[in-house]
């Protein structure tokens, strides 16, 4: 058995460059996708102001409080050019009649030109509506006070007082927290977790797939007739792949923590447990896949597709909340990616303990065990030519 492990280690020695390259590229991707170290990317929205009324400034200022979008005032020509070059995602046109529509009519129409039609446009639409309602209601209140004071106080004085109260004397405030009173983090952690889970999966699976290379080169046939036997060979391969994958994933977490301040090292023990079970589940899946294909070439064609689909289904690239289909949400439960992302998010973002993620850990363990045993059984039964 030790000899089989030694043989795998020697093979690994020849592949360390590939493993390092995979790790380096994973970290590069995390960096790029999280928008550098800030992770504070805002989509640009152009504002074309056709009205010269002072109140439009209040509307624009209200929009600029947004944390979601970066609002930029532009001419219509500039805005359209930037839309076409994808430098802006949408353009809002404030009509000439903005003030009249806002204060004297029962409705207002704002034109929104966008280059896409998705959830972020829905959020933008809500933000526009809220800002208009805020500006309109503030203006209505000022006129209400004016009426109540029988027009004895100048409108500017009322407005000044109202603005002062609004800025400094709001009685009600709202605070957002996570479960352990942490300040809510941005989505940097989600991107990092998702990308690490996605990218390390390839090296883990390809590590085990080395066995197929032996089958292709007929060395497998020679080894199984040696005293080592099939099971020991597979076990040795699995053990080495497991530890390589585990060390790799932990290293990526540690480097990401160092580079992006991603809060992994604070919870390194819990992160390690989830990572170990995730690597184990992938090892199980890889063993099963190996048992179903006939050559490295088939495995090579199948692996990226299976792993990418699993990562997409499992919520590595986007939160599963945006998926409405019940079938796809059910399928997501069958992927180890979903449980690994969920477990890591709960530990790192919400600061849950291991007890709180017992479901995630159990599912990862079960997926690994079931696939590994079925794979092992099938490989034992299979005759390779």
């Amino acid at each position, binding site marked *: 058995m030790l000899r089989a492990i030694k043989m795998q280690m020697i093979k690994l020695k020849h592949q360390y460059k590939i493993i390092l390259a995979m790790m380096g590229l994973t970290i590069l991707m995390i960096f790029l996708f999280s928008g550098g170290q800030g992770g504070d990317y805002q989509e640009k929205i152009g504002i074309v102001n056709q009205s010269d009324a002072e109140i439009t400034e209040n509307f624009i200022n209200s929009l600029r409080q947004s944390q979601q979008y970066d609002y930029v005032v532009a001419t219509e020509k500039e805005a*359209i050019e930037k839309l076409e070059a994808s430098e802006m995602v949408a353009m809002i046109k404030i009509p000439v009649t903005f003030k009249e529509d806002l204060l004297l009519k029962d409705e207002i129409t*704002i034109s929104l030109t966008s280059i896409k039609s998705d959830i972020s446009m*829905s959020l933008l*639409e809500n933000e526009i509506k809220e800002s208009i309602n805020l500006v309109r209601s503030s203006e209505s209140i000022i006129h209400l006070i004016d009426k109540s004071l029988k027009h004895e106080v100048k409108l500017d004085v009322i407005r000044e007082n109202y603005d002062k109260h609004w800025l400094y*004397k709001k*009685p009600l405030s*709202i605070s957002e927290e996570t479960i352990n009173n942490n300040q809510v983090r941005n989505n940097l952690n989600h991107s990092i977790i998702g990308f690490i889970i996605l990218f390390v999966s390839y090296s883990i699976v390809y590590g085990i797939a080395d066995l197929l290379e032996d089958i292709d080169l007929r060395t497998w046939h020679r080894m199984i007739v040696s005293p080592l036997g099939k099971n020991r060979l597979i076990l040795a391969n699995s053990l080495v792949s497991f530890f390589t994958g585990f060390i790799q994933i932990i290293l990526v977490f540690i480097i990401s923590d160092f580079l992006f301040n991603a809060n992994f090292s604070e919870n390194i023990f819990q992160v390690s447990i989830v990572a170990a079970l995730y690597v184990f589940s992938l090892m199980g899946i890889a063993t099963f896949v190996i048992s179903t294909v006939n050559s490295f*070439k088939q495995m090579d064609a*199948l692996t990226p597709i299976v792993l990418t689909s699993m990562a997409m289904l499992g919520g590595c690239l986007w939160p599963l909340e945006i998926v409405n289909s019940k079938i796809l949400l059910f399928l997501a439960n069958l992927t180890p990616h979903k449980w690994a992302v969920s477990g890591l998010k709960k530990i790192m973002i919400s600061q849950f303990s291991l007890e709180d993620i017992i479901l995630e850990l159990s599912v990862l363990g079960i997926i690994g065990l079931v696939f590994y045993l079925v794979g092992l059984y099938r490989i034992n039964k299979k005759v390779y030519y």
Partner: protein
Amino acid sequence: MFIKMIIKDLKLVFQDKEYLLIVILMPIVLSSILSFALQSAFQSTYQIDQFKIGVVKEYTVEENYEIPFMGNIDIDRDVLESANGDNIFFDNFLDQEEIQEIMSYEILTYDQGIQKIKDNKISALVVLDENFSKDIFLNFVSPFRKAMNIRVIKNESKSITSNITYDIISGFNTRMNQMIISKNVLIELAAENDLLSSINDIESRLTTFNDSLENYEVIVDEKGIENKKTIDSKSYYSAAMLAMFLLFVAGNSSTLLLDEKRSMTYDRMIVSGISKSEILMGKYITIFLLVLLESSVMIGYSTYILKVQWGSLAKLLFVVLAAGITVASFGLMISIITFNNNNRKLTVLLNSVIFQILAALGGSFIPVEALPWIMQKLRYVPFNGVILKLLLNTMQGLSLHESFFEFALLGLNTLLFLSISYLLIRKEGKHAKGH
């Protein structure tokens, strides 16, 4: 002879039925999954199912609250009863039909709420502190300002719905603040200007104000850029998956030359008088034909099953041919590298990580418009990103002239891959002669 070689290469590819099934069928499966999974996220009228939140009431509601320094003032009993925070928050706000359609709530203790977040059963927990009801009452009825805070504890696993909860509660805060501030400013200015006696009918004015807010309609008229079609999820992911899987066609073809070498057929072809360039041309055309096959299957499937509109057929054909030339050049280049290195390490690295990265950079996973600016700039670096842009341009109805930049980029990529291939072959030739 040359045609026979291409036929032989195609036969070899088609012989491996499982491999072919994987390469042709999987993109179809994947694009279908993605199209349906993200269908709603690709609609601006995004609808989310009703979700649940928890509310912690740390206060107790009393029949009457004492107002400091105003003990002797006679206030309407109805006003006292209705102005407490409990009434305002639940009866006038959370129980409204519009809010109930979006989210339902249950009253919980703090510990129950935290447990429900841990069990992923609620999207957020709203904590109203022990003085909430009384403080709202004081803010409404007295001239004093009592600072108060509503805590929203978010469930990070339900980031979208927890943010919606925050926005809704924030909306409540805004409305409350406006009403209370309007009262405070009115009293302050009236006191400063000796007008306290003339203030009357505030309640009916506030009601009118509230009604005017509720009846006012903001219409957002959404449209796309003139002459450009908006892309839905099915269209986007059909094009995105096609662009991504063309990389895999090249990657999976990268062992074509190595396989010839390992099975000794390469040497046999050379001694039978077939030139190296003929062998390479054969591989090039094989990869090119595989690209056409993959594209035809994907486009056919998405057109007839997913009802995707790819735009003008002639323009689409032009784009596919241009893409085929570039992908085949790339495939040839990596075939030569694999052949020269005599191992599959490059293929493994390409299929496992590099193609995923190129696919991500090119926008095959997430549309680049939704990504940081650096990613938007990088979309043109990998040729699959350029191919995706060309396919999207065709769908949006842009003319070939308007896609000149993308075609030029593809041309440059092709030139680069072919030049590298030429240099590598020459290097290998010198190396072989040396031996």
